[in-house]
């Protein structure tokens, strides 16, 4: 069972990104209706991203649940987070098999390019966004920056 708090947390992140970085969705062009399964392989859950311009959503699902998706992106949680944060290069991660892609390759490439056009750090923003998060979480997120 994914906690209600987790879902709220994810929802807030994606809404925050869509409000502060609307360009991401402009770059998604023909792929805003696609369903992305983001699979942090070392966690018990997977994430479903629907980057619809007006109503984007990011939800967590238990790993065992059978889900429909257009594209799946898998890697360790830290790898995925660092890539989204612009610290690691997606192509290089693919070349070393730290990142696996399945399904609609074009949608994945498009998402990657869209997320990459973000100045600063999404992770940093999220850390600031949740001042009430416990100190361990915050310091974990900030450590990723180093």
């Amino acid at each position, binding site marked *: 069972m994914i906690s209600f708090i987790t879902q709220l947390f994810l929802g807030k992140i994606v809404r925050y990104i869509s409000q502060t970085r609307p360009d991401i969705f402009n*770059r*998604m*062009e*023909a*792929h805003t209706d696609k369903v992305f399964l983001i699979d942090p392989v070392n966690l018990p859950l997977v994430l479903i991203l629907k980057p619809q311009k007006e109503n984007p959503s990011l939800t967590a699902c238990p790993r065992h649940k059978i889900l429909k998706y257009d594209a799946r992106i898998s890697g360790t949680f830290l790898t995925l987070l660092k*890539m989204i944060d*612009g*610290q*690691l*290069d*997606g*192509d*290089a991660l*693919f*070349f*070393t*098999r730290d990142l*696996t*892609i*399945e399904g609609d*390759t*074009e*949608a*994945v*490439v*498009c*998402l*990657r*390019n*869209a997320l*990459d*056009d*973000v*100045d600063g750090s999404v992770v940093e923003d999220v850390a600031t966004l949740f001042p009430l998060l416990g100190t361990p979480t915050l310091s974990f997120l900030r450590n990723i920056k180093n």
Partner: protein
Amino acid sequence: MHPKKIIPPELVCPAGTPASLRAAVDAGADAVYCGFQNATNARNFPGLNFTFEELQNSIAYAHNHGTKVLLAANTFPPAGKTDLWKQAIDNAVCLGIDAIIVADIGVAVYAQNKYPDQRLHLSVQAGAPSIEAIKYYCEEFNIKRVVLPRILTIPEIKQIKEEIPCEIECFIFGNHGLMAEGRCSLTNYTTGLSTNMDGVCSPASHVKYEEDENKNLTTKLGEFTIDQFSCSQNPGYPTICKGRYLVPHRQDAYYAFEEPISLNLANLLPDLIEAGVHALKIEGRQRSRAYIKAVVSSWRSAIDDVLEGKPPHISDLLALTEGNKQTEGAYASKRWR
């Protein structure tokens, strides 16, 4: 004895997004090249490239930091669609672009006639590897700089430099394409999308990765299998000229053109500078800003080392290269051919 006077070469860096452009500028690029979000450039990839407004803001950012911005308008407009390319030229000139990189003769004619003062560079896509070919473009279209294909040795580059009336730009790092640029229809043959007309090479829309239960990865372009990798092998992107194929006289599949490998001329940098190359180009507009930041800053400090008479220190960029392998390709030896 005085050391031979060396001209500081311009470090020319790629940018696929405004964020990448700022990363390149901040990391010490002398010039950044980019393209509009359409078929007018050879990296017409999903989610990549610049709108008019993005380019406007990016040029302002770059110019504030003393960095030039070049527009790649280096594909070949098919008859009936030339307006898109003309508009790209008009827009770039209107935004105060520092140079336009062209390949098509028709595009060059348009730019030169309408904007005689606009600086034009000849793209590698124009396929001009000889003195005569380069002189042809210089004399007919007032080209100020030629981007040389990655097929020449350093002595050959030196020879060319002495006989042509324009500057020379050479690739130093990044993807190592094997086919003569601007003369390859392999992608169109396989996917129906043309490298020259649509600005794509192995488009992601036709790429499939298939992993089996043993983690063997098959890469496909359209209907054709380009390569297969066991779980311990480093995969490459399914580019046709980096695939593995079978021929009757060899037992196993082999890299018929080239293996997944990247160009890295780090060790030849002093020779290139000594040869008088005016600009050193990093490939990779399709790569992330993490790549841009790492690669540009590394080359910036290496070039500065050489200019100060020190041996260049290049930090390890192997982790960013395709197949995790690198080569000096044709630059080091004719035996590459």
